[in-house]
Structures are given as structure tokens and as C-alpha cells.
């Protein structure tokens, strides 16, 4: 059967069958239900999605059940009560409240329909009043009108779900087995999104996969690099695969704005905020938590933006992302969010609050998880004008037991920094001076893994120095601080345990007058980049903290981003489209050698593909470190081969180019010679250009400027 039938074909067929075409409305012809006449629809996917949306025009109607059954006399009173409850939430349409009455008994039936102006109001009403206690025996059950049909369809008998035959998926971690041990990264420039290998040996990237309009706003790797998430108007999608990128799962969430993976990449949190129908209201926020692999919504949270703003006071500043913070570790066991005077901790087994209630903490404004253990650090600011001190406390989950607490006085602000192994917690405390006119900064250092969690106070030598940046060495015991006044602050390094005294923090060194405002430790530790981003023109200093020496200095003008690759071998500096010009990125080696640079107009994003933690046991890792020479030999030989090959190819290429050029030159010379006479003719016989060599002659010109005679007397 032809895919497309032309109108002529149709006419011919009609004539054959003696059908009068003019009496027929072709558009009215419908295929029998369930029959496709052998034409397979190519948008099977779409159909599936459609079943998720119930746009049937009754979206703004809710059904309120469990109303009292009242006789006719009380009808008006009940209606009044219901109307009062529901008109608080939104505007009920005129004649939008209908309470059916049993014609036999003249009593109400115990339910009513309410029609709002907008589906949003209806949704809100459902959320707010479902479970509303009118009195002890009348607890409202509120549902969307559209949902009723769905509920009716639920079969009475439970049928076991069909078990689909297991189809092995692709190896989603194939990229880790790259023979050249390269890393991947994704870039977004213009409308294109590209995934590339960083081939540092060849000094250029190698394309893995590219796609135009892959995402509508941004892309994001999952924390272990298995998936690449794209964000669209309809929701989010994740991509992955052995050799290329194919779609693995879709997560429907209209107008999704932000996404966040759990650290073990089991769950995906999506967020959207919607314009309120009434401009005085705050934005409505919808958050869904999906299971990444099955695509199922595990839990959704809806509410006004106020409820999700940190500390319940945000309002204007809006929601700070991520709303839900995941506890450390790869098990994705707990996640938490902060509310007004509470911290709500959920566990992922049931997606319910631990012990069914939130942790009550008066006035809590900030919290953070340890990156490895289920420990929460909470910060409560000073209250009552200093009568009640500010507090930082560590809380164990799920026991909710307070492990350690520290009271702090005259605090203006606090920031918490966890070391990546969860060994240490640094709390940067800004305190008021006595006059309360200015602030100064100190650090409270918690040693989490030691008995009783000792706390140490660290103050900078110059207490009035402003802290510009702070960063822990990943997996290490050191941290770096940029302090001082712009534009040339100092950079100091401290160690939590140095040689002799392991229990005390000690300063390693201070570098004076650096053009830096950001710190970027190598993920393997030891090396750090002191970067002067944006305003400081992109100065880069590659510093070795083991040797306490600068390895190299560089500049990437107007760099906005610095990203280490997950192995700490290479680092990328990028200028993204926040700057109009020079968009693109530079790839450096860890010791500050510029390897290559790529320029891209409208450069939006650069992200290294993260790697999961090493699968090697600590013993094996130690063994490798010990016998590094043996292992590195092999790679060095490979490197050499590649560079030999490259220089060989390069030489060959140059030779070819030179030869080709010589051919051109020869040809031109010949033609030039041929045309010599004609050129001469054009110049009226004057000898042609380069044939007559002119020579420079020195000409002396004497000019008589003035002549005057003077009599000079001899005395």
C-alpha cells in the first residue's frame, strides 16, 4: 500500500467503485477503532504520553466528598459553609457550586461539585482541603473531576503486572574503559551540544556525539557520569549508552526549570515554578522526585514558593536550589529540606519523613550534609539581640541525636564547608566587632572523625582581612584561603595535621599579593589553581602545595569558569557567553601547560563527564602507587609513539604543502615570464618590474639658505 495517496488516485478509485465524491466528506471518514489498516503509526510514543495528560476541559472542577447529608431545610446553610471554605482558595464560577439532591428523599447526597475559573485554583483547592475536618465524622475527600473516571476504571481484582522479558541494556559505563584512558566532556555552543573526548596527546578533542537542539535550556551529567540529562519544556530526559548517546528515559514535568541528581544517581529531582493566576499570590512550585531507572515519580511536592524558600523567609529571593539536599554516600538514603523552624528529613525507602515528623529547630536558616555520612550540620543565627547565641550543631540521622554543638556569639553570618571525605567541617563565622560597625572572620574547625569531635578555632593573623574564598583539598587535610582586600589579596594554606602535631591546625605558607578571587583544587589534591576570574582578567597560577611552589602562570583572558577533569590530569578554563567576545575554552595540563584552545561563538557550558569512585581496593591502589614506575613505563612508551607519529605526520604534511606551493610558484614564474613582453608594451616599452633593479643613490643636496657678510674686527 502506498504511503501517500494523491487526490487523483482517490478520484480514480472512487470512479471505479461508483462513489460520488462530491457527496462525501472525506474528513468525516474514520478508521474503525483499533484498526490501522497496516499503517503503523510512528508516534506510538506520543500516544503513551497523551494518556498522562487529562486535558478534557473539566480540569477546573473538583468533587468534594464526605459532606454531611442534610435535609432540605439545612441545604442553604451547608452550601454557605462550603462556599465559604472554597471561595477562600479561588474564585468559584457563577453557578459553579452544585450540590446534587436525592429527588426521593430531598436530602443531599453528601458530595458537591465546585467549578473554579482556572485548573490551578482547582488543583490548589484539592491540595489544601483534601482531608479537611469539617467535624469529627466529616473529613473531606477532594478529587479532581477528571480523576473520577480514572478511579472508576481501577479494576476490582488485582491482576499481577506483566513481567517483561529481560533485555540486557547497553554498558552505560563503557566510556570508562577507553583504551587511551581519556575523559569526556560536553559543551554547548549556539544550538549545538557536543560530547567530545579530550585527546590531550593529539592536542585536540575527538567528537563522540553531537546533536543540534539537544536540550532547550541546559545539560547536566549525573554525579557518576552515567547519564547526561537534557531539559525540555515537557520535562527532562537522560541519555547514555556504550558508544553513542541514546535516550534512556523521559521524565514528564511541564516547564521544568531545574534538575538535580541524587549523589548515587538513583533519583532525579525536577523543579518548576508557575506564574500564579492571581498576581498577588506567590509563584507555585512543583517538585517531582523520579526514580532515574524506572522513570516513576516517587514523590511530588507542591506548594507556594514561600514554603520552599530557605528558612521560610525567602519570599523575594525565591527558592534556593537545590531545595532538597541529599545525604552523602552513594546509597541515596536520605534527603532533607529546610522549612520554617524545621528541617524535614526524608528517607528514600518510603519517601516519607523519618519518624513521620520533621526535626524542630527554632529559626534554623542553613544546613548541610556531610558528603559521606548521614550527619547534618545546622546553623541557627543569633536571637533576641544576642541573648540567645548563634549555634552550629551536628545531628546524626536517623537517630536525630545531636553529636556536637557549638555556641557562637555576636555572629553576623556563617558558612559551612565540608571536606570531601567528611573528615572535617569548617565553619566560617563572621562576627561583629565590639562597635558592631564592622565584621571580622574566624573559622571553627570540626574534626568529625575523631572522638568527641574536637573543635578548633582559627583566626587569621590579620583579623580584619576579608575572606574571599575558601576551599578544602579534596580527600586531603589541607585547605586554602584567599584573604585580604582587593585587588591583590593574600593566599594562605593550612594543614589540619602536619608532621609533628597531628591534632592542631598549622599554617603552611602565605602567598602575598595574588591576583586571585577563586580557588580550584585538583580533584586528586596536591595541586591548586589560584584564579582571578572575570574582573581580574583571567589570571591563573598553577601551584603545587606539596612543594609549596608555583609551577606555572597563565592567562585566559576574561575566563569565567575553571573545571578540573575528574582525574586531575587536565584543567579547562572557559569564557562562556556571559562575555560577548572570545568565547571558547583552553585545555591545560595540571602543571599549567596550555595544550590546546578551541573557540566557539555563543559558548554556554563546559562540563567534564564525572567518573564514579575508583573500583580499586585501597590495597590495590597503594600497590599501584608503589610500583608507579612500572605502570607508567607502558604509558610513556605509548606517549612517545604517538608523538613520534605526530611529528612524522606533521613533517610529511609540511613537505607536501611546500611541494604544492613550489608548484604554484613555478607556474606563476612561467606565466609571468611569458607575459613579460606584453607588460613591457603596456608600459610603453619601459622595462618591466623586477627585471630592472633600481639602486639607492645617496644624493647630497646643498641648499643656500642665507648669505650675510659681516666685518669682524681684529683687536
Amino acid at each position, binding site marked *: 500500500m502506498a504511503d501517500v495517496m494523491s487526490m487523483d488516485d482517490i478520484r480514480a478509485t472512487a470512479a471505479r467503485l461508483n462513489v460520488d465524491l462530491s457527496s462525501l466528506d472525506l474528513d468525516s471518514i474514520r478508521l474503525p477503532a483499533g484498526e490501522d489498516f497496516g499503517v503503523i503509526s510512528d508516534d506510538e510514543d506520543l500516544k503513551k504520553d497523551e494518556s498522562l495528560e487529562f486535558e478534557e476541559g473539566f480540569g477546573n472542577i473538583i468533587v468534594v466528598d464526605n459532606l454531611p447529608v442534610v435535609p432540605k431545610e439545612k441545604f442553604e446553610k451547608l452550601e454557605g459553609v462550603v462556599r465559604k471554605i472554597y471561595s477562600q482558595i479561588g474564585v468559584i464560577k457563577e453557578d459553579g457550586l452544585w450540590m446534587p439532591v436525592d429527588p426521593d428523599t430531598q436530602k443531599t447526597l453528601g458530595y458537591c461539585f465546585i467549578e473554579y475559573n482556572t485548573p490551578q485554583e482547582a488543583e490548589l483547592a484539592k491540595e489544601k482541603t483534601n482531608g479537611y475536618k469539617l467535624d469529627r465524622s466529616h473529613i473531606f475527600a477532594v478529587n479532581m473531576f477528571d480523576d473520577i473516571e480514572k478511579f472508576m476504571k481501577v479494576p476490582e481484582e488485582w491482576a499481577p503486572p506483566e513481567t517483561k522479558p529481560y533485555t540486557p541494556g547497553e554498558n552505560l559505563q563503557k566510556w570508562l574503559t577507553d583504551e587511551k584512558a581519556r575523559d569526556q566532556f560536553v559543551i554547548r555552543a549556539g544550538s549545538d551540544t557536543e560530547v567530545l573526548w579530550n585527546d590531550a596527546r593529539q592536542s585536540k578533542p575527538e567528537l563522540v556525539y553531537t546533536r543540534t537542539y539537544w536540550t532547550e535550556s541546559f545539560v547536566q551529567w549525573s554525579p557518576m557520569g552515567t547519564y547526561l540529562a537534557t531539559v525540555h519544556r515537557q520535562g527532562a530526559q537522560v541519555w547514555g549508552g556504550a558508544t553513542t548517546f541514546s535516550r534512556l528515559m523521559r521524565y514528564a514535568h511541564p516547564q521544568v526549570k531545574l534538575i538535580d541528581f541524587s549523589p548515587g544517581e538513583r533519583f532525579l529531582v525536577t523543579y518548576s515554578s508557575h506564574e500564579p493566576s492571581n498576581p498577588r499570590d506567590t509563584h507555585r512550585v512543583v517538585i517531582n522526585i523520579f526514580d532515574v531507572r524506572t522513570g516513576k515519580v516517587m514523590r511530588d511536592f507542591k506548594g507556594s514558593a514561600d514554603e520552599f524558600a530557605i528558612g521560610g523567609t525567602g519570599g523575594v529571593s525565591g527558592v534556593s536550589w537545590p531545595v532538597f539536599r541529599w545525604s552523602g554516600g552513594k546509597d541515596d538514603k536520605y534527603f532533607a529540606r529546610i522549612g520554617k523552624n524545621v528541617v524535614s528529613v526524608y528517607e528514600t525507602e518510603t519517601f516519607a519523613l523519618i519518624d513521620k515528623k520533621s526535626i524542630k529547630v527554632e529559626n534554623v536558616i542553613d544546613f548541610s550534609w556531610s558528603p559521606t555520612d548521614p550527619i547534618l550540620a545546622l546553623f541557627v543565627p543569633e536571637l533576641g539581640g544576642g541573648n540567645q547565641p548563634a549555634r552550629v550543631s551536628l545531628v546524626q540521622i536517623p537517630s536525630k541525636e545531636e553529636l556536637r554543638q557549638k555556641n557562637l556569639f555576636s555572629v553576623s553570618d556563617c558558612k559551612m564547608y565540608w571536606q570531601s571525605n567528611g573528615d572535617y567541617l569548617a565553619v566560617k563565622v563572621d562576627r561583629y566587632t565590639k562597635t558592631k560597625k564592622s565584621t571580622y572572620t574566624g573559622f571553627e574547625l570540626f574534626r568529625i572523625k575523631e572522638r568527641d569531635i574536637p573543635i578548633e578555632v582559627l583566626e587569621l593573623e590579620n583579623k580584619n582581612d576579608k575572606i574571599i574564598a575558601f576551599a578544602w583539598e579534596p580527600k586531603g587535610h589541607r585547605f586554602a584561603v584567599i584573604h585580604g582586600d582587593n585587588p591583590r589579596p593574600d593566599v594562605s594554606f593550612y594543614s589540619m595535621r602536619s608532621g609533628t602535631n597531628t591534632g592542631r591546625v598549622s599554617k603552611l605558607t602565605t602567598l602575598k599579593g595574588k591576583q586571585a578571587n577563586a580557588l580550584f583544587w585538583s580533584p586528586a589534591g596536591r595541586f591548586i589553581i589560584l584564579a582571578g576570574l572575570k574582573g581580574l*582578567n583571567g589570571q591563573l597560577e598553577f601551584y603545587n602545595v606539596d612543594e609549596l611552589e608555583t609551577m606555572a602562570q597563565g592567562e585566559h*583572558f*576574561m575566563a569565567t569558569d575553571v573545571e578540573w577533569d575528574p582525574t586531575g590530569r587536565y584543567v579547562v578554563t572557559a569564557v562562556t557567553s556571559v562575555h*560577548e*567576545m*572570545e568565547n571558547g575554552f583552553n585545555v591545560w595540563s595540571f602543571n599549567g601547560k596550555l595544550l590546546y584552545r578551541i*573557540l566557539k561563538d555563543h559558548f554556554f557550558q563546559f562540563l567534564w563527564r564525572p567518573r564514579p569512585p575508583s573500583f580499586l581496593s585501597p590495597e590495590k591502589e597503594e600497590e599501584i602507587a608503589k610500583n608507579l614506575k612500572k605502570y607508567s613505563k607502558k604509558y610513556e612508551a605509548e606517549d612517545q609513539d604517538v608523538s613520534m607519529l605526530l611529528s612524522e605526520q606533521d613533517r610529511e604534511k*609540511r613537505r607536501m*604543502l*611546500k611541494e604544492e*606551493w613550489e608548484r*604554484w610558484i613555478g607556474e*606563476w614564474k612561467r*606565466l*609571468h615570464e611569458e*607575459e613579460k613582453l*606584453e*607588460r613591457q608594451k*603596456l*608600459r*610603453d616599452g619601459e622595462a618591466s*618590474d*623586477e627585471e630592472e633593479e*633600481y639602486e639607492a643613490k645617496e644624493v647630497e643636496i646643498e641648499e643656500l639658505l642665507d648669505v650675510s657678510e659681516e666685518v669682524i674686527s681684529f683687536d
Partner: protein
Amino acid sequence: MRPILMKGHERPLTFLKYNRDGDLLFSCAKDHNPTVWFADNGERLGTYRGHNGAVWSCDISRDSSRLITGSADQTAKIWDVKSGTPLFTFNFDSPARSVDFAVGDQIAVITTDPFMGLTSAIHIKHIARDPDDRMAEIGESVLILKGPQGRINRAVWGPLNRTIISAGEDTLIRIWDSETGKLLKESDKEEGHKKPITSLSKSADGSHFLTGSLDKSAKLWDTRSLKLIKTYVTERPVNAVTMSPLLDHVVLGGGQDASAVTTTDHRAGKFEAKFYDKILTEEIGGVKGHFGPINALAFNPDGRSFASGGEDGYVRLHHFDPDYFNIKL
């Protein structure tokens, strides 16, 4: 060597040209006065006063006696180089953009911009040997070529004055028959420039030429066959190009549009004259200095110095250090 800064123009430079002997440098700018300088020490010799609009380009006769200039005041003028007196004026109905003497200096090609409904055009004019010799009669064009869309930024003579090569805003390079006015060749859309061509510079022997374009590249073409030989890729729009007559080097100048120039840092704009190896198309180095995009570049015919003219109104004269001649790639 330190460059010589020549401040004689009050407006952005538009064009630079050395005479054949390489002792004089002629500069055109958006102010109305083309200027002549000593190419050796940058001393100003004089100006040519008479135009009433920006001067877009100039050319010097082989014997350095005549200068032709094209101006936005809708005229092209012929000057006596020595005295600075205008000898003759060609009047057009739209601004004159590019001028070029043919071999023998008896004809010149002048392009005019699209203006007030007029399309752009390439005019071929006769130049009389003797200025008094009935100049008025030869003000008429010998031939007028029309066709290209938008401005024609440059038109020069091909070998033996048989062809005219034009390039401009419609990104195409065209070769015309200078006798019949027939379009002979057109550059391939695929391999050609993707954005307007801003400049065109012939090699010393005229066998090949270099074009610079806003698409951030310069291309080297064979004059006779219009075959693409090389492409030089850079990071900025190219406003000016030139080739060393001595070494296999090409120089590209540019920078973003004057309207997009930032006020932050001169490094941001990268207003450098970039040197490329002509054969390997690899970047060799750059010469910094201008506080704005480079609009004009010219190589001294002896290959030992070059001049750049910028949007900043300066002409910078660079004499190469001895080690320039020892660059090995």
C-alpha cells in the same frame, strides 16, 4: 624595533599604500586629507587637500608622480604627488570606494557604492599622460560593470590588464573581462567566504591575491584561475590583509566592529596584526599596539617594514628586527 607612531589623521584610517620604490607611504582616513609620509622615519611630507568626505583608498603610479584617491564625496581625484595639487576630478553619483591603477598607469578602475537607489558599480577610466591634455573629455567611463549586490570593497586589475577582480559585501570574488565587461569567473560559494569581504591584496607579481573577510578568515587565491589555494583562520573579523614580498608571510588585521569595541581592556579586542606562515597557514606571531581594530595594512615593497592603520587614527610603522628574517617554523 620600536614602532613609529604616526599621528596625522583625526579619524580612523581606511587605507595604506607604499609607492613602488618603498620610500613613500600614502595613508587615507575618514578625515578628508590623504597624507604622504617618509616610509623610513615616519616624517610627514604633506597632505592632499581637496576632498570633502572620507577617503576610502588610493593608488600611486609606477613613477610616483600621480596619486589617485577615491572618496565618499562622490569623486575620485588625481593628484600631483610632488606638489599636492589636484589635477583632475572624476565625478560620480555615489561614493567612490576603491581605486587601482592598471599596469602602464593609463587606465584606472574605480568602484562606487550603492547609494540613493543606485547600485554599486565598477568604472574603468582613462588617465591621460599629460594633465593639460584634454582631461575633461576623458572623464567618461570606458566601461561600467554592474551586478554584485551591496558594496564592492575592492576591485583590482588582473594580469596584463585583461581582467578585473572584484570582491565585496556579497562574499563573492568575481573576475571580469576588462574589455567586454563580461563576468568570467565567480568564486565557489562553498569554499569561498561566508561573510562580506573587507579587503583584497595582490602579490608583488600579481599572480595570486589574498582576501580578508568578516567571517574571521583570509583566503589566498590564484589570480588567473580563481582557485582557492589557502585559508587562514583567525579569531576576529579580518579588516585588512597584506603579504610580505620577501618572505612567505601574510599579515591579517582586524578586530570586532567599531561599535562593539569594549571599553574594558585593549587585550580583549585583540587588535593585533597577526602574522601567518603563507604556506603552512599557521600563526607565527602578532604585533600589538592599536587601541582599536586595524583597518589598513601595507607591506613595504622591500619587505623590511610594514605599516598598519587603525580605527584609533594612528599609523604604526614597524621596521623588522633582524631576527624576524630568521623565523623558522
